[in-house]
């Protein structure tokens, strides 16, 4: 993109956002505190901003310069006492630290914070960030910010940079997937009657022997040939007494474990099968007792062991101290133990793997100094920005190396784990990088490429729907993926849910999805796994594209900077219809481009997309590599309905999904934090950290808002300080309002139930009265193939196959629909869908069990033996069976409530509901696996 064109676009953006020019042309901007956008638990005292708490507090200004020049930034402040840590000034990503000097007698004083070069044309964010995790008895007060340049009228304040409205979301399209990728088979290898396996390191000892370490410090072996679909896998304990192992690597006969404080080689000197020697290979860095100091790893390349170290968290909250060299990528010679620190500035790099070309990849977790999660392509001597108080890491430098791929928090990652590169046996995904997530769950997929020597790429949602979370991976030579999960802490219910071992097989089933994204000089080229349907994909409106930057701060997390919708100038489909080039004239380096595909883009064979999101990190735009802009053919299909829908209530739901869902359930299940079920309006027992007193509060809008803005202020009994991230420092005022509004609506039990069951993006609370035109049949005599195709997509979207089968394909928790539509059509068929309890076949009745413990279990009896009854309590997760010991049953009744949830059609538009009926009335046609689109996501 030419500079001229870019400036034009930015001027348009700024015009829309409101640029306040100074009344008189001046070389400087003198900005009152009230012009600040302030986030977190800050307080206003008239026109003065007072900051006492660091965690989550951010103040900032967007400024803009017509031309590039040097500027000096100063603040007017008072502070009665010296602080034990420095404030951070982040100017367009460049950092300076400010030791706040006490001002005499509390008088106002001006402090010069630094000199920077301001880029022309872009809204530049100037952020002032207090020390994270610290609370001071007296506030630091701010009255104004002064940005002084050299050219009169060059600088202006940018206000009203509003986040763009985003389209309604469904799983895989703006929201986390909820189902397993159709081309993956998973076998849960957790022993039902054993304590949870918390897998911390994995490696193949031989082609069919898997070794893994556990959080408890044991090393197990698993003969993969002895694994069956039923029965306890034959785990064999082969070593013990390891200290918090977090990585395992095997090179020939040599076994290496990264433990809490050292890299260790396990040696069986006498060949008796027992490791009697634990050789300390390396411990050439300081350690403390901090719980969060781990060594994550590990991989071996060219006789070198590589692993990464995390920073401590306990001391950080007090004075920001880190033991020297924490947060490094470490290289150790496995023969002589020689240790090198090849990169620094990492926070919680919980996973290391070899990427394309045997490059080193690590992931890192959002938090202090990480506004979002990262997939990092490790470069020698690189610094990735996590800082503490001096002595700083020897590789620390003012400008950090960007990650290969930013992983936006809550959207595609929350705590990413080990990356692993897929082998040839994974077909179209060969060479792609998978990684897990310790809170977001599932598998995410990254496609990496090199642009003028810089590695970057895109991340895609890939699969959810597994029984536990994934932390470590290893591949067999045949391409079976073994995935281990772990949870910290003592909540054994939680640990059991998220820990374990799973075998994942790629089945080669063809699935329609965006496969890769490649940067061009003028946009992004998206490759699909199958050809698009003819005439589809040419409409720029079928791609909702946004872009933003990130700016790291010393407080937790961070917001999107310059978050805006991006113009798609054109969309060009390649001649084989497997690629679409999006012309993006506003694309700039240093930002993330998010492409949301319209759900209505089908493949040539009629398959709907499995997922429609991708996030591309633009580190380097190639100079002479333009994408192919083509004219659309005459026969392009024009959409009858808009590609995207923007519902007012959607914002809160998406915010919940992105920022809350990892820790707060909607269905009462215990996650990291309290459930939101029955939260609004309830009484909460909380304790005030400042007074130490416990008391009851009503969880009204004020309380919810307060908890978001200052999570530590009123802690719910049983939850520790600092457990909840200070998302108040990330969300805008409008976002907090939207989120609180959504949470308040959860006080409606029906709303909460539907949200919990499916959390659909769009709610249309259909009743039979809305379909008064539906008679004995919806379809006319002559069927409309297009309507049936749309109905088939609606059928899949409504997740009918989760419970029902069609001609033998699908689940058998409900009747085969081919049989059902022989009896019911039109209005009767619709009523059976909308009012499932109208008539329940004996086979599908729900039972209610009262157990001796007082617990009530409701669900469908799937099977029964002499000792136990196996009950599916959630038909949307039929694989999760609760086993009820018959001796524990005090009472059992058949429920008059159908196991089929009400409101399943609420995610569909009226046309979609009618098309769904037409599809069912028409047969429905058998759905065979080879052409089945994904079901639940």
């Amino acid at each position, binding site marked *: 993109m030419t500079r001229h064109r870019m400036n034009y676009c930015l001027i348009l953006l700024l015009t829309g956002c409101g640029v306040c020019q100074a009344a008189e042309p001046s070389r400087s901007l003198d900005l009152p505190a009230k012009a600040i956008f302030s986030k977190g638990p800050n307080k206003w005292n008239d026109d003065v901003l007072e900051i006492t708490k660091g965690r989550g507090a951010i103040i900032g200004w967007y400024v803009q310069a017509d031309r590039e020049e040097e500027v000096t930034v100063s603040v007017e402040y008072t502070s009665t006492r010296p602080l034990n840590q420095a404030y951070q000034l982040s100017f367009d990503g460049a950092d300076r630290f400010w030791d706040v000097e006490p001002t005499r007698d509390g008088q106002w004083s001006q402090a010069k914070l630094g000199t920077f070069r301001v880029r022309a044309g872009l809204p530049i964010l100037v952020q002032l960030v207090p020390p994270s995790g610290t609370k001071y008895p007296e506030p630091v007060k701010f009255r104004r910010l002064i940005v002084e340049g050299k050219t009169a009228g060059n600088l202006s304040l940018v206000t009203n940079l509003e986040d763009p409205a985003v389209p309604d979301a469904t799983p895989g399209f703006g929201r986390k997937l909820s189902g397993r990728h159709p081309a993956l088979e998973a076998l849960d290898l957790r022993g039902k009657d054993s304590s949870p396996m918390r897998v911390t390191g994995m490696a193949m000892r031989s082609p069919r022997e898997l070794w893994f370490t556990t959080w408890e*410090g044991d090393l197990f072996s698993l003969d993969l040939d002895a694994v069956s679909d039923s029965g306890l896998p*034959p*785990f*064999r*304990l*082969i*070593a*013990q*007494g*390891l*200290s*918090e192992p977090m990585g395992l690597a095997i090179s020939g006969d040599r076994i290496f474990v990264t*433990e*809490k*404080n*050292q890299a*260790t*080689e396990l040696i069986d*000197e006498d060949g008796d099968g*027992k*490791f*009697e*020697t*634990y*050789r*300390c290979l390396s*411990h050439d860095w300081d*350690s*403390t*007792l901090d*719980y969060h*100091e781990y060594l994550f790893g590990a991989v071996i390349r060219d006789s070198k062991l590589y692993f990464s170290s995390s920073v401590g968290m306990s001391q950080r909250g007090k004075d920001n101290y880190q033991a020297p060299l924490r947060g490094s990528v470490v290289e150790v010679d496995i023969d002589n133990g020689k240790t090198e620190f090849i990169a620094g500035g990492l926070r919680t790099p919980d996973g290391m793997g070899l990427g394309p070309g045997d490059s080193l990849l690590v992931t890192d977790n959002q938090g202090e100094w990480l506004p979002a999660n990262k997939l990092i392509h490790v470069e020698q001597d690189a610094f990735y920005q996590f800082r503490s108080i001096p002595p700083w890491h020897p590789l620390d430098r003012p400008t950090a190396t960007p990650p290969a791929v930013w992983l936006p928090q809550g959207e595609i990652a929350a705590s990413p784990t080990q990356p692993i590169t897929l082998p040839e046996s994974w077909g179209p995904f060969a060479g792609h990088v998978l990684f897990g997530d310790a809170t977001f769950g599932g598998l995410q997929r990254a496609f990496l490429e090199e642009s003028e020597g810089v590695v970057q790429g895109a991340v895609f949602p890939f699969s959810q729907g597994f029984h536990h979370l994934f932390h470590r991976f290893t591949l067999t030579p045949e391409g079976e993926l073994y995935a281990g999960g772990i949870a910290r802490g003592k909540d054994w219910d939680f640990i059991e849910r998220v820990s374990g071992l799973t075998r994942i097989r790629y089945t080669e089933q063809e699935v329609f999805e965006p496969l890769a994204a490649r940067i061009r000089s003028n946009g992004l080229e998206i490759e699909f796994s199958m050809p698009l349907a003819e005439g589809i994909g040419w409409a720029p409106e079928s791609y909702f594209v946004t872009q933003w930057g990130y700016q790291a701060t010393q407080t937790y997390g961070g917001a999107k900077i310059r978050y805006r919708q991006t113009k798609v100038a054109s969309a060009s489909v390649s001649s084989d219809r497997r690629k679409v080039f999006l012309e993006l004239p506003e694309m700039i380096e240093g930002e993330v481009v998010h492409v949301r595909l319209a759900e209505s883009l089908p493949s040539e064979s009629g398959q709907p997309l499995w997922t429609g999101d991708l996030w591309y990190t633009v580190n380097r735009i190639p100079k002479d590599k333009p994408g192919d802009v083509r004219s659309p053919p005459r026969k392009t299909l024009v959409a009858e309905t808009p590609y995207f829908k923007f519902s007012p209530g959607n914002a809160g739901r998406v915010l919940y999904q992105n920022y809350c869902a990892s820790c707060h359930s909607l269905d009462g299940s215990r996650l990291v934090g309290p459930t939101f079920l029955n939260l609004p309006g309830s009484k909460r027992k909380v304790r005030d950290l400042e007074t130490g007193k416990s008391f009851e509060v009503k969880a009204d809008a004020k309380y919810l808002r307060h908890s978001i803005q200052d999570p530590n202020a009123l802690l719910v009994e049983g939850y520790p300080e600092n457990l909840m991230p200070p998302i108040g420092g990330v969300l805008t005022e409008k976002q907090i309002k939207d989120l609180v509004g959504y949470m308040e609506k959860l006080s409606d039990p029906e709303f909460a139930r539907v949200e919990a069951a499916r959390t659909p993006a769009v709610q249309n609370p259909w009743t039979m009265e809305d379909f008064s035109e539906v008679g004995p049949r919806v379809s006319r005599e002559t069927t409309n193939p297009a309507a049936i195709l749309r109905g088939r997509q609606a059928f899949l979207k409504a997740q009918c196959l989760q419970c029902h089968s069609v001609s033998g394909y699908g689940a058998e928790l409900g009747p085969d629909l081919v049989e059902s539509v022989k009896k019911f059509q039109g209005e009767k068929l619709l009523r059976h869908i909308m009012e499932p309890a109208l008539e329940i076949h004996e086979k599908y009745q729900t039972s209610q069990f009262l157990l001796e413990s007082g617990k009530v279990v409701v669900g469908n009896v799937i099977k029964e033996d002499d000792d136990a009854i196996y009950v599916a309590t959630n038909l949307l997760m039929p694989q999760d069976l609760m086993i009820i010991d018959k001796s524990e049953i005090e009472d059992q009744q058949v429920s008059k409530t159908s196991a089929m949830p009400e409101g399943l059609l609420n995610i569909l538009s009226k046309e979609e509901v009618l098309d769904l009926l037409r599809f069912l009335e028409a047969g429905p046609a058998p759905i065979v696996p080879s052409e089945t689109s994904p079901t639940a996501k």
Partner: protein
Amino acid sequence: MPRFILSILFGLACVSGARAEEVSPQDLPFDREQINRYSLDHLPRSISIRQGEDFWLGYDLPRATLYKAWQAPRGKAGLKASGFVMRSVGKALYEDKSDETWKLRRGGKTSPLASRYLGCTQREKYFELRWELTHQSDVVTLRERVPLTAENPVTREIQVAALPAGSQLLLPTPAHKGWQLKSADGTDATSLVDAQWYQLTTR
């Protein structure tokens, strides 16, 4: 009938085979009841070794020294866990919280030695720790063995290898004061010479 007996024998073989998969912690080295490699008290890098039923020796690995010897309360554990950090519980018999190092004496000159932990080995009768002690280009290897059962509690054995000619290895000061160093023939010693095993007992 022979076929029936054969089936039973086959069944028993299968059962015993399955049991052979089950290895108890006592069958493997580094049973945490005896050897605990978690952090001890204030020391991130440390190891705790149980000698006999209720005596424990805790090592400060970076310093290559015994940090603490203690006796667990009667009938109780000598270590109390707080997460992955252990706390010594019982009667302290010896404690060294100093920063004193090993020293090399040569030609009337005494030099402090830097230490580097090399690892540990569990044998049937003893547990061995190894360090590298360095001063400039001099590198010596220190081995310390803790008999897992001992007639006299808190007994240790120690050996240095590759000691430069004409040199002697001196114990860190607190160890010198708190422990009796004896050569293999039972005579008292004040320093170590190359390749000989010495015994350390509390004074």
